[in-house]
């Protein structure tokens, strides 16, 4: 039931670091975060990692496991072979503070750049009437637990620091779509999405959708429809292409 696993964990602070090897006990049913905790309790008390809920609900424990962005608390050890060396590193798109903890302030900065929900001035609290079907689109995006893994994998910024000022990343482009689809939001968000938040940088590779632990269809349901809404006013060749790709794969199902 219990075995010894080989772990390589990124350790370091202040811009420097290296992978450190550990041999550590693993028990039935455990997840990667449990193993990191065991390392803390037994071998490396100052090993830094973020976590809160341990149930995939808070989006704190994002890390890269064997190079793939994952939630440490939702990655079961049983998905690895017992003799496999498991490499755990911090998210790559953000500067490392220490060990597995990165500086994610970029995301909070972007959140503040998106204009907030803007209801009509004459609707009072308690008077909102919306049909389930009309809220469902935005509700999907509000499942987001802000793990920031989509922003972490998006190639527009993953290895391109220089694009960060002009690109909100999938998480916050999706936030624009969420507000745009909110039945009571009256702000015009289309031009800003394109001009200020960099929607045009997205070339719908869907890497963001693939890593989303909440299985939100970021690209298909938020980014592409948002591009379409923008294109009502502009011509964007990618949307045209994206539409074709989307429809074709849709038809196959």
């Amino acid at each position: 039931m219990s075995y010894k696993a080989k772990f390589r964990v990124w350790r370091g602070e202040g811009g420097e670091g290296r992978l450190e090897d550990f041999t550590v006990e693993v028990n039935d049913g455990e997840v990667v975060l449990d193993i990191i905790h065991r390392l803390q309790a037994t071998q490396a008390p100052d090993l830094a990692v973020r976590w809160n809920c341990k149930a995939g609900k808070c989006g704190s424990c994002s890390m890269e496991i064997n190079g793939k962005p994952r939630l440490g608390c939702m990655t079961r050890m049983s998905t690895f072979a017992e003799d496999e060396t498991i490499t755990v590193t911090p998210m790559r798109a953000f500067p490392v503070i220490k060990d597995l903890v990165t500086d994610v302030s970029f995301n909070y900065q972007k959140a503040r750049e998106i204009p907030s929900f803007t209801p009509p001035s004459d609707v009072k609290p308690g008077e909102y009437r919306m049909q389930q079907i009309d809220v469902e689109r935005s509700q999907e995006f509000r499942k987001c637990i802000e793990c920031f893994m989509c922003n972490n994998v998006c190639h527009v910024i993953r290895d391109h620091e220089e694009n960060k000022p002009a690109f909100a990343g999938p998480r916050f482009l999706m936030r624009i779509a969420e507000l745009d689809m909110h039945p009571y939001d009256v702000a015009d968000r289309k031009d800003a999405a394109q001009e200020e938040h960099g929607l045009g940088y997205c070339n719908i590779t869907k890497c963001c959708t693939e890593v989303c632990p909440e299985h939100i269809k970021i690209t298909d349901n938020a980014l592409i429809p948002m591009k379409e809404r923008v294109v009502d006013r502009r011509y964007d060749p990618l949307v045209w292409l994206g539409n074709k790709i989307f429809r074709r794969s849709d038809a196959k199902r």
Partner: protein
Amino acid sequence: MEIERHEYDVVVIGAGGAGLRAAIEARQQGKRTAIICKSLFGKAHTVMAEGGAAAAMGNVNSDDNWMVHFRDTMRGGKFLNNWRMAELHAKEAPDRVWELEAWGALFDRTKDGKISQRNFGGHEYPRLAHVGDRTGLEMIRTLQQRVVALQQEDERRHGDAEAYIKVFAECTVTRLLKDGDAVSGAFGYWRENGRFVLFDAPAVVLATGGIGKSYVVTSNSWEYTGDGHALALLAGAKLINMEFIQFHPTGMVWPPSVRGILVTESVRGDGGVLKNSEGRRFMFDYIPEVFKDKYATTEEEADRWYTDQAGNRRPPELLPRDEVARAINSEVKAGRGSPQGGVFLDVSSRLPAAEITRRLPSMYHQFKELADVDITKEPMQVGPTCHYIMGGVEVDADTGAASVPGLFAAGEVSGGMHGSNRLGGNSLSDLLVFGRRAGAGAAAYVDGLRARPKVAEDAVEAAKAEALAPLERSGENPYVVHQELQRTMNELVGIIRRSEEITEALEAVGKLKERAEHVGATGSRIYNPGWHLSLDLRNMLLVSECVAKAALLREESRGGHTRDDFPGMSPEWRRRLLSCALGPDGSVTVEEEVQPSMRGDLIRLFERDELKKYMTDEELADFDALVKE
């Protein structure tokens, strides 16, 4: 090294529902407000809440109103609640929920487009506003986005987004500072680099949540080390009702690493049933006397209730949590448990698979990914888990003010509202109602001050020395001390308690307190969990001492306090509240306080037949006199 210093009007410690709502209120009243939290912004414990927020909006059943909600809350708390808080809560919860909607929240809807409401244990009507089973996430995100909206407004107006409301994330407060009797600020450290930070402020709102990390099996996260409870004690405030801890009946039991993680009550609210190893719906055997006429006695009636609530009584699976948790405990003890040491919770035979994944998406996900169990095909195995503390800082109901001038508290860290047992869904609404009130209370207090209290430099030096101590000594591993404390509390002051065991726990906690003073942390001050835990131990130990001491004194069983040696509920004890304070030698003292009698118009909301189950003859005589008038 120079300490980083900030000056604010109001400092809110905690960025969960209560803290954010308090901060929003203080800022809306023009106060310069700081929000301090241990985790990143938007990750507080509130994010984990699943089922919903209780508010008598009457959207699903128009018979619901604040009086029904008030009655349910008092019943759930076994009449030990601070009735003024229960009243304010029931009256104001709908406005607080509607306000969230105006800030962008998207709750699930009824057919006529209103906010949908679901059934939950102890609530007479469908009352919980919800979004699937991720209501806490919706709430925290909405409040977080409201803070951002206010910052955008300040940016436009003052050219500085953080001029009036600023979030200090991953920053831990370790001491409150005082000038004479009154609060003058807070001292803490940045997790990121270990540097110290001082907040100079005349008003501090505690909104730090609960204490579950003193137990092994808990639904709570690492943040729940009872910091606010301990900070209040150390600052001279009182904690009440600390013996009352809610063990949620349904935590996961397998695999061991997820033991304690919550299985939302919505599973039962939406039709899930509890069964023992013999396949029996055992909750029918555990309906207590006081609830006999409110719950169904046959499976047929219970099942009819889901579609016809007017003509049938509720299924006993929806009894208040303390009853269900004790029942599960008894079934397991009697050898009728499930293979992994819990009981079965089955929704697969009750709802179509598609309906289950629609209504309970995160439960489906959680079991699938963590336990390899498909809840649309097979039952879950569940057992009690330490979930919520009813006890906390004693506050004035209307303003959230503690006995220390300038100190306020709201949310799980405050005490009184829920009496001896909290109803599901009553916490999220509590956070909004009393978060707002505490923010307003703090703002009004600041307005009324003649002079700003000063921070005493020697107290800052002392706080600094205290925080640095674990790094400067080589001592025992703090994780070992923590694990021993968790085992002690779990085994000796858990769901069922008896005098000898509590006494044993107190001795153990005393010894652990000494050991905690000698733990050592290796490594640097940069994001060092071992160091952080060394500092948290002080708080967990103080809180555990409160829980155990109060539990030993209360010689009755009520709500979240079950004494094997005093199994009955005593009307005499209902009038007595236990209040903890810190003695001069650093140990906890407990005193009895008298629970004030309920206001006439409120007590008349109940039938005499019901009151007589809870009240003394003397109180009943007063009631009779009142009714005659």
